[in-house]
């Protein structure tokens, strides 16, 4: 589903991502972990087509993001670490805007909006301007928007930050469900326990370089993911 080959992105003279390669198959949830400033957001933004990268290749479902970004983005949903949505819209208008862009018909969008806003207990706030939402409410709205067009690949940057426990649980269920239907998920997190329980694969990035990548069992062996991560952080390996 997602194939990243030799991705390199520099800011000035600093290499934010250095020759990173990984693959995620349909049905897989891949966790992306690393210290602050390791290059997680840069990688996710490059895959989402927001950032232009210097070298490498990214394909989603066989479509190259540089060659056909529009077709590629139709298969993707991206949730950033800080949900800066359009404050001037109401929640409903925002969801309609997203649905319009992805060409979701009225019947389907109404059904999905009703279902997901009900699940996330956001129905009552849907006609309020987004500027009045809390961080958690914006995060919920961003999740609902991401699920509007049943994407094949969902990219999420710290998706659980700001969500209440019930919403976080719900999101995990939705992640499983979309993978069971053939989708894939690539998300960054600092909550290693969540990554350990949720992910089929894990990628550990340090100073822009991928230092561990594989199935959860391959990466952590008999240790906990936290132990492996802390050990890798302490070593000079990168």
């Amino acid at each position, binding site marked *: 589903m997602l194939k990243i080959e030799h991705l390199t992105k520099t800011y000035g003279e600093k290499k934010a991502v250095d020759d990173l390669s990984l693959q995620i198959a349909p049905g897989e949830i891949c966790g992306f972990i690393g210290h602050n400033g390791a290059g997680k957001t840069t990688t996710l933004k490059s895959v989402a087509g*927001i950032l*232009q990268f210097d070298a490498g290749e990214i394909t989603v479902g066989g479509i190259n993001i540089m060659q056909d970004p529009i077709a590629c983005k139709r298969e993707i949903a991206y949730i950033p670490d800080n949900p*800066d949505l359009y404050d001037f*819209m*109401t929640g*409903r208008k925002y969801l309609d805007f*997203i649905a319009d*862009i992805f060409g979701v018909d009225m019947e389907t969008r109404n059904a999905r909006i009703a279902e997901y806003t009900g699940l996330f207990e956001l129905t009552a706030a849907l006609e*309020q301007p987004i500027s*009045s939402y809390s961080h958690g409410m914006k995060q919920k709205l961003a999740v609902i928007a991401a699920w509007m067009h049943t994407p094949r690949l969902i990219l999420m940057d710290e998706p659980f930050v700001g969500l209440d426990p019930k919403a976080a649980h719900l999101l995990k269920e939705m992640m499983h469900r979309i993978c069971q239907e053939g989708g894939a998920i690539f998300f960054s997190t600092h909550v290693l326990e969540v990554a350990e329980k949720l992910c089929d694969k894990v990628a550990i990035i340090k100073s822009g370089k991928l230092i561990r990548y594989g199935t959860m069992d391959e990466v952590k062996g008999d240790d906990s993911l936290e132990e492996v991560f802390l050990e890798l952080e302490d070593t000079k390996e990168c």
Partner: protein
Amino acid sequence: MLKVLIKKQLYEIFRGYFTNAKTGKARSKANTTVMFLLFAVVMVALLGGMFGALAVFLCGTLCKAGLDWLYFLLFSLLGAALGVFGSVFNTYSGLYLAKDNDLLLSMPIPVKTVMTARLAGVYLMGLMYSATVLVPAIGVYIFFFGVTVARAVGMLGLIVVVSLTDMFLSCLLGWGVAKISLRLKNKSFVTVAASITFIVLYYLVYFRAMNWLQDLVSNAEMYGEKIRTGARVLWKIGSIGAGDMAALAICLTVLVAALTVVWRLMAHSFMKIATASATTEKRKKTGAKQFKQHTVPQALLIKELGRFTASANYMLNCGLSLLLLPAFGIFLLVKGEYVLGVVVQVFGERSGSTCVLLTAVLCMLNSMADMAAPAVSLEGKSYWLLRSLPVSTWEILTAKLSLQLLLGGVPAVFCGICGAIVLPGTVVEKLFVVLIPLGCVALFACVDLAVGLKNANLNWTNELYPIKQNVSIAIALFGCWLYAIAVGGAYMWVGWNIGPVWYLLAVLALSAAGTAVLYRWLMNRGTVCYEKL
């Protein structure tokens, strides 16, 4: 603490002078100096020169008649009016709507310190405006009548009094606007309506001011006596400039007391207003029946329109033509024959000048439709959103362009048709009265978007920065003025030799060529520019 906050406040106001918005890098000292010099030229040479000329006109007559106080009073009132006009909405948005309010309020900083720092910015803006009026007036007075110690203290005191009056009125009005807006539904439209009423009143006074001034100069002694006996407060304010120390002391005492009262009022409600969420917006029943499915271009255009109508600042600063052009069209229908008759009388020897000057005026009025200029910067922190969606960069830019074409084009066509109805000319000339402003709309939609892209700044804490203080807005506004002046001026200079039809055809062709070049630039380089933000 206060010093740090004021420094931050000043840096925000003048950030564009120290930092290149495009690259985010600090400007060189030479570059910063040039920027400040340009600013000084605009303030001193243009505005200051205008008030200096007025001062020369009034100073001789009033001061020779022993009415020095009336001279200073007139300029004090002008300074106060300009200051309040310039800063009342800045007070509201700068004080209560700043995006870093939450951040500052979360820090161990007393609320009053945050308020003081913000109000320091308001005071400086008021001081700048009032000084623009008073300094030329004082200069002219000193030139003709010299200066004594008492007068020098009085004149400086007058600047302080006027700037404090500005601050008092701006704070009071800004606080009033904030209190009202807390209870309002459809805040943006109500704010726009109130602002436009204010602007209309301002211009009504402005256009009649010359008649009033001439009347005042002719009957200066009578009016002076009336004010001295009937409005002693005004007399005392004017006397400050003439060196009345007692009046200065009284005025300063009263102003300090008045400011203290307003300060207490504002401090009492600051937290409540600054931290209020937007839940007073119109509540509708939840339901999907009012929503329709749209195509991608439609959805993007609706999004841009939503951004425009959601912000009173955006509408007021970038969309006044939407009202001015239709209003002028109606004015033309009612009084057009008389106005155009006067133009014929004045410029009669230049055949076809009525038609060309009318198109130039319509182009001038279009200068206040420049919503494309800040549109890119206004994406701000939500820039990621459109970039992550399956829309091409050109579609994003087209939506921004379309908004200006639509909101600028429809009023321009309406006004052009009104002009064509009253214009005593041939059918071809009438056609140009519609086509030239339309060409201007198209050209400046492209110009505005291009300069907006080249000077895009996504990092702002108050939307006033992209809307009012970004250089792209100045280029958009003054560029269109220059265009209009060039269209009218070039015809009066040499263009009349070839007649209005061929001249306007050449203008239209040049505008179309310019539009085509810029359109192509936007499609190619502009999209790259947007993607690299």
